[in-house]
């Protein structure tokens, strides 16, 4: 009797691949022998398009890179351009930016939690997390006009100043958010079914993470105490008091706990940002920018998925000569091939969920 492996195609249309990801699995029964992700189904040529658009127009494109964390993409991009221009951002704008980006982190993790739990069979959390996410979408819509793609940051600040409604609604959200996270934890954290699907699945060592370029909650789940908001602070993050959660063995459960704890920490940061919001000193909330000096810069932020960086090469013109997006999901997804080897087919879904990919960022 000969042993044969089967090749199974997962995706690109599949409820659990979170977008158009295709994975070619080689199975020996139900054990994975090899897994090759096939990406590019959402490659839209964003980096090429950026060379044909002005710096201001590119801002609109950045929303669509990681569509679950549009504010973070805007933020990383404007910070890189402001570095190029050596532009000072008023303190008030910095605090509002931090509040918006942390709210976006919460919204991104909420969506992740709902869909990840749904993939593993827990259908209820999806409705709870999307309910809270709608509250955040309301706040974004009130301040910027857009839910998913606000395009709200501008060079030197923001498109518009925040008013008292923003402060009131944000406070209302953060005051009750901790109880909502308790609700999600009640459903999942000590649930034996959840634990059996996630504990010891996809364990990562620190060395593996660093060598594979893995960043974000996955790296922290493996035990690496690294968060760009603390190690290389930007936009007044050093003014805020928050903890960086770390895990023990980098499995799916640890990644889940990282994101849950990050949501709690982000709510604290938002609270501190709106409580300590400096008064407007009358200066404009954004800068008028016309000239872009020649030079190159690289700036990265801690997005909900990891290190999101923008490398901009300017030749002095209205459009960048090169705009490179350092995509956290792309680099994190590389690790998937090794993590699933020797595991069961059902663990593939859990591990893809743990990475928290957004295909538009993987493919650009």
């Amino acid at each position: 009797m000969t042993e044969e492996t089967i090749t199974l195609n997962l995706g690109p249309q599949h409820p659990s691949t979170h977008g158009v990801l295709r994975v070619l699995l080689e199975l020996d029964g139900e054990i994975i022998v090899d897994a090759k992700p096939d990406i590019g189904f959402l490659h839209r040529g964003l980096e090429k398009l950026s060379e044909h658009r002005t710096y201001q127009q590119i801002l609109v494109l950045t929303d669509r890179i990681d569509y679950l964390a549009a504010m973070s993409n805007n933020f990383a991009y404007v910070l890189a351009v402001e570095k190029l221009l050596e532009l000072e951002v008023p303190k008030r704008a910095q605090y509002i930016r931090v509040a918006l980006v942390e709210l976006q982190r919460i919204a991104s993790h909420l969506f992740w939690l709902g869909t990840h739990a749904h993939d593993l069979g827990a259908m209820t959390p999806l409705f709870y997390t999307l309910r809270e996410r709608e509250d955040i979408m309301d706040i974004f819509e009130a301040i910027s006009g857009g839910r998913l793609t606000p395009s709200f940051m501008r060079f030197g600040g923001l498109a518009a100043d925040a008013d008292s409604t923003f402060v009131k609604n944000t406070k209302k959200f953060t005051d009750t958010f901790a109880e909502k996270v308790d609700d999600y934890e009640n459903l999942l954290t000590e649930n034996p079914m959840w634990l059996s699907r996630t504990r010891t699945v996809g364990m990562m060592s620190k060395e593996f993470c660093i060598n594979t370029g893995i960043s974000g909650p996955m790296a922290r789940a493996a035990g690496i105490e690294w968060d760009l908001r603390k190690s290389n602070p930007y936009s007044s993050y050093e003014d805020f008091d928050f903890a960086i959660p770390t895990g023990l063995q980098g499995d799916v459960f640890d990644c889940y706990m990282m994101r849950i704890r990050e949501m709690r920490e982000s709510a604290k940061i938002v609270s501190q940002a709106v409580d300590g919001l400096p008064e407007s000193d009358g200066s404009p909330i954004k800068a008028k920018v016309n000239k872009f000096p020649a030079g190159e810069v690289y700036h990265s932020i801690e997005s909900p998925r990891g290190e999101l960086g923008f490398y901009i090469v300017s030749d002095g013109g209205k459009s960048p000569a090169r705009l490179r997006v350092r995509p956290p999901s792309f680099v994190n997804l590389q690790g998937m091939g090794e993590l699933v080897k020797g595991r069961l087919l059902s663990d593939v879904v859990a591990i893809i969920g743990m990475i928290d990919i957004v295909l538009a960022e993987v493919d650009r």
Partner: protein
Amino acid sequence: MTLDGLTEKIGNYIKETDSFRDEVTVTIDRDAIIPVCRILKEDADCSFDFLSDCCGLDRLPETPRFMVVYQLYSMQYGHRVRIKVPLEEDDAEIESLTPLWKAANWLERECFDMFGIRFRGHPDLRRIITPPGLEGYPLKKDFPLEGSETT
């Protein structure tokens, strides 16, 4: 890390340096890429253990046409360095960094996909994100934005 600190460690490999907006960039020859990266990764004062990014650059009409740009980061010290390697248009090949960092695998594949730059010793150098059957390399300056008839 400061430029002086770097010059101490890899000075004999450096062709050019740049310090713009507090960022340090060194340009080296392509034959130096593996020795330089090994030093930067293993030296205790440098400790650049994290390969943040690897991408290509098309400088048409300047020569040499291509540049491969690496961004390195140190977990321990939190400092960054940018390494640039110029490549001629008709000889766009360089050693792969996959023996040092697994992160280089897909990053180099994307660089190959977008520019046609070949990485010697890469375990699986094939196109990664562009549509199958695409002729040409999209991020080259002479590739049209809308693509050509054959795409």
